[in-house]
């Protein structure tokens, strides 16, 4: 077995990379609402972060000890739970879905308001008697939340996992019900669906990795405090 000795050469670089804190932010809708928080917390990402053509995945900030990554909202929780990211902004929906024990979500940022709901086709909702259910088939991005929600009422939920366009599923006969995020309800209405049950109110949280909080408490608490001030400044 070769012992290529990388330890001497690379150790400082590796150590420096590990010393840096990484904050994961979700792409899309929430990001626009998060940016003012970053500004109020005094974080300025490098220009490439705002350049849609940039292929970069990891961005530096004006804080030498803080980098930002921009990933899909579901992946934010995964990066955070495994300690690849130390800080994150994540929707409560994603945190509930995975229920990772390695994530702490100390701050409610009071942004990204919406709710998780069960919806069904209008004609299904009208003729339905939930007391008789023993099994339902549901299309959703949130199979765990869905299963838990129905199981708590003694109903077995067979989940069809989709990654988008959930509202299409009932229209095309894939299932009769969906569980999805609802903000204005317009998408539901336009697709002939009606909300039948509210599952949970959703907001975005400032979240941290558990091990990072235990091993680097000062660094992590510093950022929690800064985001808290940023959140209070807004109200």
């Amino acid at each position, binding site marked *: *077995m*070769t*012992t*290529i000795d990388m*330890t001497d050469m690379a*150790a400082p670089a590796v*150590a420096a990379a*590990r*010393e840096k804190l990484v904050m994961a932010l979700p792409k899309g809708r929430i990001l626009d609402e998060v940016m003012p928080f970053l500004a109020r917390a005094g974080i300025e990402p490098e220009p490439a972060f705002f350049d849609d053509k940039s292929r970069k995945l990891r961005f530096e900030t004006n804080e030498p000890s803080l980098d930002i990554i921009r990933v899909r909202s579901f992946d934010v929780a995964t990066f955070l*739970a*495994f*300690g690849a990211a130390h800080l994150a902004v994540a929707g409560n929906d994603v*945190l509930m879905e995975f229920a*990772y*024990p*390695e*994530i*702490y*979500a*100390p*701050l*409610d940022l009071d942004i990204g308001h919406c709710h998780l709901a069960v919806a069904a086709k209008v004609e299904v909702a009208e003729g339905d008697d939930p007391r008789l259910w023993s099994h339902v088939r549901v299309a959703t991005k949130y199979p765990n939340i869905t299963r838990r929600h129905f199981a708590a009422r003694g109903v077995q939920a067979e989940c069809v996992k989709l990654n988008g366009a959930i509202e299409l599923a009932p229209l095309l006969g894939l299932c009769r019900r969906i569980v999805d995020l609802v903000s204005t309800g317009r998408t539901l209405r336009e697709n002939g669906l009606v909300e039948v049950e509210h599952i949970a109110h959703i907001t975005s*949280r400032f979240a941290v990795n558990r*091990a990072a*909080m*235990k*091993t*680097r*408490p*000062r660094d992590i*608490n510093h950022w929690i405090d800064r985001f808290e001030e940023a959140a209070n400044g807004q109200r």
Partner: protein
Amino acid sequence: MAAYDPQFPPRTEPGQAPQALLPNGLRDMLPPEAAREAALAQKLIEVMDGYGYERVKPPLVEFEEGMAGSAGTVSRRVFRLMDPVSQKMMGVRADMTMQVARIATSRLAHQRRPLRLSYAGDVLRVSGSMLSPERQFTQVGAEIIGSEAAEADAEIVVLAADALTSIGIGQNPAHALSIDLMVPPLVPLVCAAFDLDETATAEVRQALDHKDAAAMSRAAGPATDILTRLMRATGPVEDGLASLRDLALPAQAKTVLDRLSTVVDLIRGRLPDLTLTIDPVENRGFEYHTGISFSLFARGTRGELGRGGRYIAGRNGSREPAIGVTLYMDTVLRALPEAETPPRLFLPRNTPVSELARWRAEGWIVVQALEDVGSDAQGARLYRCSHIVKDGQASPTGETSE
């Protein structure tokens, strides 16, 4: 390092079972990792020996009812099988603490207290966790049975830190050892003092598990202020304890927190530079702990190196206070730099026995050829040796072996 070869490992023919495929969470340990794990476990045990802990070795499998903790329930992580001889259900141990507690309160019940016991062995679990998917791994641990002293709490924490430091954890400051102290009974005591009902307490518990201040305050009612202060004390131990000094806690909760403070002073007296944090509201995975508990972390390493805490050993008439620590060798290994293959000395087939013995006596790993090979250098390559004998001296081959 071997280049990536798409031909290897070879694919199994369709319809054939892949011989090398192991069930999830189980794996083969190879050289040099296997030897290293055994050596490190031995070193940890030796540190425990030095503190007067005596080794016990419980069996791999025992009757299910013997594995039940003080609460009388068997862990859901236990693999169960039926004993064809007694027709009773048996469990494969998923942890060794309960076994050691059973030994202490039964076969060693007559021995003077406090009892200090150590152990090392493999455990098997029905499923791994997210951060350590291993279903089988080695545990090394130590328990003090029959002492309620704060000194016992401190000794176990100090012992764990000492043992881990002795094998090189924290040598690189970027991977410093850090110990998180908890007091699982604290939150239930606060909730009870404010007369929160079972539902509210469960909701508080759940919110605190995620450090979710908003959800906690919705459920906690009059306990909100105290719980918020407790939650905010999470962090470096000195800051945390200082911030709680003037907190008006219910009497019982105050006693629990004072005990933590005493133990911290005792630990600090022995290990002034150790990174200690507290988390007064953490509870997950520590539900059965009855006093101070702790998790061991290495900065930058996924998962916990181990955990420990106070519990009640034994059941029914033989209940005793106990505290212990368990180290998880899979995570401990991850926190250390990769193992290096030790130097190996090549000697040809016809080397006299006395010469082989002489090199071994000098501490060399001596690899003797089983057949005639060309030159010593060729032999060294074939037998993966780093050194050959040249002019009566062990000298490096100058090649890196494959």
